[in-house]
């Protein structure tokens, strides 16, 4: 009779966590799916009517939605790519530095600990024509947050600054798993630094890289705070989360907003699945051991 008791205890101990997670994710997303099928505007709550998929049709044929999808990708793709390269560099420094390794490890945690809104404000002030210092750098003198592409640049720089440390720490953990004797063998066999990095380190780090990519891509697709603080979505920098927020909580259009929310959910889940699929056997079963 030992097994069933262990099963029961296991379920008993995990139940509170499972209930808490499901209550605030599974239930609301189902509620969002239901709401998305209605015309339901909180300013006219009595005019609630079932409209089927019409909300989705409205969104998928609107320019605002597709522009926001584009803005989200314009932010996500460069941020995550630069972070991957910078984060890898930082991880190598933390892994190999002979001097100041502890200082670097401690310092990179600072952006991670900083409230995103504060980071966004700091960068906004730095690029602001009156309160900034970037103007002092000659050719860079321009009203950064008043034109579309320069505004994107500031947003992306902020994202990179804030989240590269996280990427670097994930990669550092992967780097620590590369066996030293393999590296030594490669060195003895006459492999150059570059060969060792591209032929030995990188392939062995593939799982860590994909995990880092997965976390950061999913996170970047949800971007909200930085854009809210820096441009409030002006100049075509509005990402999907901001469109969802505005429809739901500014226009109080719960029906249409829920449809946007569901589409964002599908977008993020789709991206996550693509990356997980790309992992294939790089994500061994025993990770869930």
């Amino acid at each position: 009779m030992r097994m069933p008791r262990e099963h029961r205890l296991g379920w008993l101990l995990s139940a509170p966590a499972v209930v808490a997670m499901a209550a605030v994710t599974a239930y609301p997303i189902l509620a969002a799916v239901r709401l998305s099928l209605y015309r339901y505007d909180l300013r006219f709550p009595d005019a609630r009517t079932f409209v089927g998929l019409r909300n989705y049709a409205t969104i998928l044929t609107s320019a605002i939605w597709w522009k926001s999808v584009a803005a989200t990708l314009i932010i996500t793709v460069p941020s995550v790519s630069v972070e991957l390269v910078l984060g890898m560099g930082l991880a190598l420094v933390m892994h190999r530095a002979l001097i100041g390794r502890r200082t670097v490890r401690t310092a990179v945690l600072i952006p991670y600990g900083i409230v995103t809104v504060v980071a966004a404000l700091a960068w906004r002030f730095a690029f602001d024509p009156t309160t900034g210092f970037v103007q002092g750098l000659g050719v860079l003198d321009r009203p950064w947050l008043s034109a579309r592409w320069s505004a994107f640049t500031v947003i992306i720089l902020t994202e990179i600054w804030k989240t590269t440390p996280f990427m670097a720490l994930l990669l550092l953990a992967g780097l620590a798993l590369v066996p030293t004797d393999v590296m030594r063998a490669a060195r003895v066999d006459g492999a150059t630094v570059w060969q060792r990095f591209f032929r030995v380190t990188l392939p062995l780090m593939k799982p860590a890289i994909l995990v880092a990519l997965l976390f950061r891509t999913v996170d970047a697709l949800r971007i909200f705070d930085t854009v809210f603080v820096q441009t409030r979505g002006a100049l075509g920098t509005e990402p999907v989360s901001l469109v969802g927020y505005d429809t739901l909580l500014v226009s109080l259009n719960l029906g249409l907003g829920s449809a946007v929310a569901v589409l964002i959910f599908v977008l993020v889940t789709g991206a996550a699945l693509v990356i997980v699929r790309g992992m294939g056997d790089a994500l061994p079963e025993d990770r869930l051991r």
Partner: protein
Amino acid sequence: MRARGSPFERLFWRATTLVVLVYVGLPLAWIVSLSLKPASDLADGHLIPRHVTLDHYRAVFANPHFPAAMRNSLAIASLATVLALGLGMLAAYAVVRLRFPGRRYLLGGSLAVAMFPPVAIVGPLFDLWRRAGLYDTWTGLVLPYLSLTLPLAIWTLAASFRDLPWDLERAARVDGATRMQALRRIILPLAAPGIAATAVLVFIFAWNDFMFALSLTSTDHARTVPAMLAFFTGASRFQQPTSSIAAASVVVTVPVVALVLVFNRPIVAGLTAGAVKG
């Protein structure tokens, strides 16, 4: 670690360290500098303020919204942390120590929760909280933070629990201790670094959140610091709010940076263990 390298190598690493420090520190140094400059020097472009004033800090604390937001942030983030640790520890113990069907789904499912886009649930929560009387309350924010940080808590706690010497627990139970006694006296003290790191990570998440705070609160009753900062207007309508925002930002940043610096080792271990060692 290898023996010290050649002078060239040492110089290279020293320079690299410096570059990293400047990269990390410059935006922060700038906001600290703005918070200390008198209004007349605000636009002078100097990193080191020519005159230093604490007026902006005084103004920030004189503004009733700021202390209220600080109190809300501290209380909400602490409550969420305590609850997430409690529930997370139970679940992580079950995952590491017990064999039961559905164990893998617990880890996989919580990973899915960790990737959840907040905007997908903020609408229904807003609707529900309004009707349940949870709108603009501490509970209304603690609940979503608890749920969304549980995956992080479960993964990092499970990773650190896995490395514990569980033989000691078995030995204590052979000696007549109950499961709970063995857990409290033997295992918990050994697990302390992992638990501390998890606590800091959960706290940072809750302290950092903007979207829920923006959507589910409206007054000083529950509005947290990030949401308040976004609407900050300075002590009076006639004052440039930049300096006040800068001062408020510094005040908000200091506790978390201190926390991160103090717990830097276990945090690095926690962040990486949860994600890669799994």
